[in-house]
């Protein structure tokens, strides 16, 4: 443990040891966990296929599709910033890998490295422009959102003559890349998509960094009060740019998943609106919209809630006209349970 904040030797009442229960209840993700449990019980009671253990893999997959990107988006939000370009950046990464590999007739992995470089660059650009101009990240990333959305379509048409990238499924390296990003395996009758495993690994690593390292403390500090953080020597600029680049990295990862799960073809218009789902997952999971508070595990639980509700409505076989209304109501329910539990915890 390498913390910049030193623990005082004498213990006063503000830092006295609290019971495990109280400590647990004051965690940011506890509300969302209760919300998730409520939703789980609700669908277990109402939707028969939801009880079938074999379908767990599908629900986890639905959650992981949001959850992987919810990891960096939660970190970024704790660091006090937004990234509206996160949804289309995923598409940009997928398209770049496909287009580079196809147009240059090179190994798929070369295209992927190029896409990674671009994704990190997009993140760095967002962070740099934010620090340079002092504009709200909402505006900066909104600009990037439109630029990327336009570039996705324009560059795809320019290079392939159509609005979808050319298939790279018959090219060298596709098999190995597909195995890494889009394969699946069976555990006791449950089909697990590999993205679910990656998701859990990413959540664990990010949670460890946030809670147990100096960088984690820095992220909380810059999100809580950037000026104060700077005053005590936290490299605010570096942390914020780093956070945006982390979003870039995960956008690349998710983009690769998108590319390989779709047999090497990406439609250039995809990804619009997904940025809100990532933010919703983080907020449902207890991250404050104003920064400085939240958790990575909470973001993961938020994604799980979204996945359960989205597919639970289908498993329950409800009239599809009501789908979005159910989804909205369930998310509100989860968020309110979250809020109530948090308030109760803080009142102790």
């Amino acid at each position, binding site marked *: 443990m390498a913390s910049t904040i030193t623990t005082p030797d004498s213990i006063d009442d503000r830092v006295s040891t609290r019971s495990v229960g109280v400590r647990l209840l004051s965690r940011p993700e506890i509300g969302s966990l209760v919300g998730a449990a409520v939703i789980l019980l609700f669908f277990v009671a109402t939707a028969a296929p939801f009880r079938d253990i074999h379908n767990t893999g599908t629900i986890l*997959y639905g959650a992981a599709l949001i959850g992987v990107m919810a990891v960096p988006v939660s970190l970024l939000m704790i660091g006090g910033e937004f990234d509206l370009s996160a949804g289309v950046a995923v598409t940009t990464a997928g398209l770049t890998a496909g287009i580079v590999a196809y*147009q240059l007739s*090179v190994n798929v992995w*070369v295209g992927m490295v190029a896409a990674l470089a671009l994704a990190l660059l997009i993140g760095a650009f967002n962070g740099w422009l934010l620090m340079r101009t002092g504009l709200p990240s909402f505006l900066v990333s909104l600009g990037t959102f439109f630029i990327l959305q336009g570039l996705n379509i324009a560059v795809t048409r320019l290079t392939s003559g159509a609005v979808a990238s*050319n298939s790279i499924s018959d090219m060298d390296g596709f098999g190995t890349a597909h195995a890494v990003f889009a394969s699946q395996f069976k555990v006791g009758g449950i089909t697990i998509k590999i993205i679910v495993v990656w998701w859990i690994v990413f959540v664990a690593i990010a949670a460890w960094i946030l809670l147990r390292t100096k960088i984690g403390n820095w992220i909380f500090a810059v999100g809580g009060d950037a000026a104060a953080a700077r005053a005590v020597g936290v490299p605010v600029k570096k942390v914020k740019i780093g956070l945006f680049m982390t979003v870039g990295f995960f956008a690349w990862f998710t983009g690769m998943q*998108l590319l390989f799960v779709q*047999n090497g073809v990406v439609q250039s218009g995809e990804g619009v609106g997904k940025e809100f789902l990532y933010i919703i997952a983080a907020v449902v999971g207890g991250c404050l919209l104003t920064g400085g508070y939240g958790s990575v595990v909470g973001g993961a639980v938020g994604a799980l809630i979204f*996945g359960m509700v989205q597919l639970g409505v289908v498993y329950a076989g409800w009239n599809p006209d009501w789908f979005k209304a159910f989804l909205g109501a369930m998310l509100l329910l989860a968020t309110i349970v979250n809020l109530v539990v948090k308030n109760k915890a803080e009142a102790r």
Partner: protein
Amino acid sequence: MVRWQKKAVAAGAALVLVTALGACSSSGGKKEEEKSSGSTGNVANTPRMKVALITHSGPGDTFWDIVRRGAEAAAQKDNIELQYSSDPDGAAQANLVQTAIDSKVDGIAVTLNKPDAVIPNVKKAVAAGIPVTVLNGGLDTWKTSGAIGYFSQDERIAGQATGEKLKALGAKKVICVIHEQGNVSLEARCQGIKDKFGAVENLNVNGSDQPGTQATITSKLQQDKAADYVVALNAGIALTAVQAAKDAGSAAKIGSFDMSKAMAKAVKDGTVDFAVDQQPYLQGYLAVDAIWLNKTNGDTIGGGEATLTGPAFIDKTNIDAVEKYATAGTR
């Protein structure tokens, strides 16, 4: 720039270079693609005209790309300058029609899938002496707008034909996947299937999120074990449904609307049973060509009635004849 950032950039650049060297793919890619050069035929010697094609398409949609290609082919042949614009929002699309009127185009081809919003401005164009053709959507309303022609399939009829086809194929329970909740044309297709087939259940998915769509269809097939057919309403969703059926361990077969390069391949190798083609290329082509014919010869294609461009069924029996056009992106 701080030292670690410089190092990271250098390392990244080196990595790109190293992997790029000697990493050429032995199969696939652009080098292997045979680019068939499109024939550059003669261009009409009639005066240069300007025609606006205004659709309700969202950006980056393969279907509308094919419509646009058809329109561009006609424009090139007819010595027309084509101005393409689109907006999925009804009011915004209507405003695009107004923009075309303001810029004094010689003709407008427009979709009327949001008729209440767009028709008032179409009437303005007609009043200003600009010939208007309607494509893709608006079967019930195009005549009231004063347009000179209509080029589309009747979605309800296409759905009904699909219902008959499913009956002939011995299907028992059909899931009809709607990829844009509340889209009138898509609802009409599913309703058409229901008219003739009966046991149809609709499923709403988000068309601009393929992995999410896949998970949703998978869960539907896990929930409804009786479903033995999934009908998707565009090519991309159909291919996603193929994967979803595999994931769900379901034996459900897949039928689809619309063609694409990937769809042609799927029909050929049997992963998709059939595709209902409304020939979007033809819609774009005829909508522009009709304006030219009207301007230069006073003709009306369809003679005041709707010209249907579909449904044409494509399955294993006739895919060979269609495949090369789908690969070239015109079917």
